[in-house]
């Protein structure tokens, strides 16, 4: 399946905006998207709606479809849980998942903080 690449979108929006000599403020006026949201799109921190995406492609002149990349669906966490676990094991594995998701969240918070 294909999915929207926030990385590719961020890069394209920033590059084409600068190519056209627009500030985030000016782009905001032309597209009707809040300036702060534009900043967040460029930092991969916000996924625009289809309407906002269309406004961006119209002003900045790029193809929406180019922003979608092939993504192999893994859903590995869910797959793991279904592997014939007994009740007791399920509880333990859920706890391991909780630990993993919590740690992941902490790592992502850290990364965001360090990149800002």
């Amino acid at each position, binding site marked *: 399946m294909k999915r929207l690449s*926030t*990385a590719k979108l961020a890069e394209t929006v920033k590059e084409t905006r600068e190519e056209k000599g627009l500030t985030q403020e000016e782009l905001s006026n032309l597209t009707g998207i809040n300036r702060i949201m534009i900043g967040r799109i460029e930092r*991969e921190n916000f996924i625009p709606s289809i309407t906002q995406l269309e406004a961006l492609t119209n002003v900045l002149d790029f193809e929406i479809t180019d922003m979608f990349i092939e993504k192999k669906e*893994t859903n*590995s*966490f869910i*797959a*793991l849980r279904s*592997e014939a*676990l*007994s*009740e*007791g*094991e399920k*509880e*333990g*594995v859920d*706890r*391991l*998942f*909780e*630990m*993993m998701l*919590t*740690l*992941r969240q*902490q*790592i*992502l*918070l*850290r990364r965001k*903080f360090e990149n800002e």
Partner: protein
Amino acid sequence: MSKITLDEFELEEIRKLARDERQALGFVGETPIANDIFTIIENLNIKLLEYPIESEGEKPAFSAALMYSEEGGEELVFIGLNTADHFDKQVFALAHELYHFYTKTGSHLSRLEDEENNLVEAKANRFAAEFLLPESVLESIVLTEFKKSSLQEVQTKTLLRFIARLQCTWWLPYRSLVKRLKEIEAISDSQYTQLYAVNERNLEGEYGRLGQAINREIFLKLNAITSNIGLSPKDIEVIIRNFEDNIIDEDKFSDTLHLFHKTPDEFGYEFTITDEDMDEFDDFFKEESDNES
């Protein structure tokens, strides 16, 4: 279901992978990896999470799980380790998961003894054994010690002592060592059956006493069920710094550490408890003592 037998080509691939990865990590020739597996995991930037999960019924216990998560083009890799297992099996399980890590064979759960019916799992087990103790090294040890490559004339007692010494040096589970000796055809089918039937975990049994006589400290460690809960100090540090930089608040900090069986107090942070919390605490203990009486 019949057990999977790996063919020569598959075996050579695994030997090569284990050799290359051992070398890349700086382990050459007769250098045991043993306890260093934990450092290796950390250096590969794999997050290790430990939790004891008791097994139920006939099925072998869930031993470890490898989990991938991709965020913004960057991969995060986690290994969940079942610490309700004996320590030597934990070491083996980690080496097994490294196979999946190196070959990108995906997220999955492993049960060490159940998986010989699945080709990828059989390969991962073989890799684990080869990574911890390369076949060529084992062959050379046998040859140096006994001046021959076949141990078919060697009596059981001698074999048990030999295996116990190998175990204390290379940190492989007893049964993996017996299997390895069969794989290099050092022991016969009947020797294999006899050795495999030994209750190696009985510390009062013949093998248990031998192991303790050879290296008590290590042997007991390998046979211990650690039941550890937690994660590496490096990853705990991320949580502490997030708190110190005000990314998470006191509550979140306490809750998060609690999940990994740690407290803010251990890291020098003492939080004042509000009166409301104190009341809740009192109620809780009152209820507990009511229940007991």
